[in-house]
């Protein structure tokens, strides 16, 4: 029983990390169709933001709370710059986008190595996040609970933004039918920039969150980018609810597989499940019904 709860939580917790990493991607890739291979490096930038903030504010608790919005800003601004300088020139060329953003990812990794050095840096977790609470005998780490809460908060914020604000309405309008939105007076340019800013900002927040469980190194992004794409593709491109379901399903499945086999075999099994699933349902869990003709 104790183990079951521990493992179920491990799955939910892994799911929440996947969700955080994939949420921004489901905006930029899903809604805008930009394959951003540098999304992982935006996470890394968020993680290093947490490190830098901690150098300035030595109290780990305060610095973590400051790092979350700071990471959002850093990720978002990087995204804006990438969008303005490179991506807007190639919105209709997804293959070029993929290669260009892959190059940007390499540049960002090297920049991190040059600025912070190749070894990983230590971001301390605040005292109130150390240790765990026991639920029916199973230890639930507080850092994991924090990440779970943060991912749900980001999700709620994003849904609220898309559903309940004029800005969100414009973004959705552009996704559904870019031409019609444009002729109706929506500035698609502005909507694109904002979407990319928010999506990249969410990557920054994810980066801040993962400093609590892993290492902060120039390679941080490469650990998450593949999983993030898997979540978005399995969930259905352009579908935030699909990404949510896919993230938690993959998290729980991976924990189950990993527990009953080994970490490496578990990873293989999860990839097989995704491949089979996409054979049966290439559009993912949900598919986007657009009104566009393309």
């Amino acid at each position: 029983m104790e183990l079951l709860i521990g493992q179920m939580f491990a799955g939910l917790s892994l799911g929440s990390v996947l969700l955080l990493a994939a949420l921004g991607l489901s905006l930029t890739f899903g809604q805008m169709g930009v394959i951003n291979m540098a999304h992982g490096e935006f996470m890394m930038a968020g993680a290093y933001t947490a490190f830098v903030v901690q150098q300035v504010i030595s109290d780990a608790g305060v610095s973590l709370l400051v790092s979350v919005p700071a990471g959002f800003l850093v990720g978002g601004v990087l995204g804006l710059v990438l969008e303005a300088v490179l991506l807007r020139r190639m919105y209709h060329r997804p293959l070029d986008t993929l290669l260009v953003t892959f190059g940007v990812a390499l540049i960002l990794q090297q920049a991190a190595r040059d600025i912070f050095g190749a070894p990983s840096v230590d971001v301390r977790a605040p005292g109130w996040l150390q240790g765990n609470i026991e639920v029916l005998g199973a230890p639930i780490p507080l850092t994991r609970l924090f990440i779970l809460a943060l991912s749900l908060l980001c999700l709620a914020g994003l849904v609220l933004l898309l559903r309940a604000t004029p800005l969100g309405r414009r973004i959705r309008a552009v996704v559904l039918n870019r031409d019609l939105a444009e002729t109706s007076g929506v500035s698609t340019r502005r909507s694109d920039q904002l979407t990319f800013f928010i999506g990249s900002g969410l990557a920054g927040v994810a980066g801040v969150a993962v400093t609590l469980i892993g290492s902060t190194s120039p390679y941080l992004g490469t650990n998450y980018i593949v999983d993030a794409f898997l979540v978005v593709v399995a969930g259905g491109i352009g579908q935030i609810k699909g990404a949510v379901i896919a993230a938690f399903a993959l998290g729980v499945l991976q924990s189950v597989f990993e527990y009953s086999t080994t970490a490496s075999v578990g990873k293989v099994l999860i990839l097989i499940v995704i491949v089979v699933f996409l054979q049966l349902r290439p559009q993912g869990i949900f598919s986007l019904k657009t009104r566009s003709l393309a």
Partner: protein
Amino acid sequence: MRVSVNKRAFLPLAAAAMATALAGCGSQIADPASAGSTASTGTSCVDTSGSSIKVGFINSLSGTMAISESTVFDSLTLAAEEINASGGVLGKQLQVVSEDGASEPTKFAERAGKLIQQDCTAAVFGGWTSSSRKAMLPVFEANDALLFYPVQYEGLESSKNIFYTGATTNQQIIPALDYLAEQGTKSLFLVGSDYVFPRTANKIIQAYAAAKGIEILGEEYTPLGSTEFSTIVNKVRDSKADAVFNTLNGDSNVAFFRQYKSVGLAADTMPVVSVSIAEEEVPGVGLDNVEGQLTAWDYYQTLDTPANKKFVAAFKAKFGAERVTSDPMEAAYTSLYLWKAMVEKAGSFDVDKVQTAADGVTFEAPEGLVTVNGENNHITKTPRIGKINSEGLIDTVWSSPEAVEPDPFLATYDWAKDLAK
């Protein structure tokens, strides 16, 4: 017109991009034969007529291994300066030719060939990963040149052209197991990164455990660089093992120790013995995550020997007070002095004469007196178990009563009979 991403087009493309990325990481798996074949068997071109003699240093000064290997380069540089200041080798000043292995085994093989054939160095020092050593081995054998390799490794190798100054398995892993058994450890959980060293090490541990009645409650591998350990720490916690044997490499250690601590496991209830965390790695893993945990090496900065005090003081004076010294750095420093002693015993820089003279050569190293075993070209070392202290340095908690003879093929251990095959 909405930009539509065709998933069927995207997936293979993304896969191709991933493959490119992975190929970059995987380039450690090189084909040693192709690099070795360019080297021709020729007579040595080492110039011994002048007042100086060339030696080669080959370390990764760029790429993922640079962080570790640049520290070895530093300690080699220190040893060369010290030797030159005290009169050189056979009256000749050392002239160092340094090459960057760039964390790629193929590059190591190619640069080693250059150091031997073009630079005509009398001996080469360096290498870190086993794949870089395995890539260089055919080059040194084909050219009949000398490599001094300073890092602990998985054993099961011996070449007359390589001197191994780091620990082989019976000088690091087996003593660690002896220590655990002595402490009353009845069960172990094995955690490692999924590549050659942890897999070989765990094979040895399994054989040892079977012979000594220690129960192995789990053996888990994670892909290199993996940061998700919640399931593994749950398994470890659930196994209630007496101790954990950790052969994880690099950044995975950070994630493992953080998540280990966060489910309430601690050094005093379930200690973790690590074989790849040295003084250099502690800050990156985070001191509060590993304080009190155990390590297995042959050298620690805190060793109280006159040779070590001199080494640490000289190193800090040259490279800065905040720098630390670690086992591979000490083994590299020692390797240059060992070569000097071999050359002086042989009275010649000639490779054949140095090889013949090598057996029994000793050096009062920072880790204690080391002696070269001319049969397998390894050296005697004193295994030590350490505990990470509150300053991030490592205190010796157990030390082998005497230096241990190197036994790379574990020929003297009955229980290891089937391993060397």
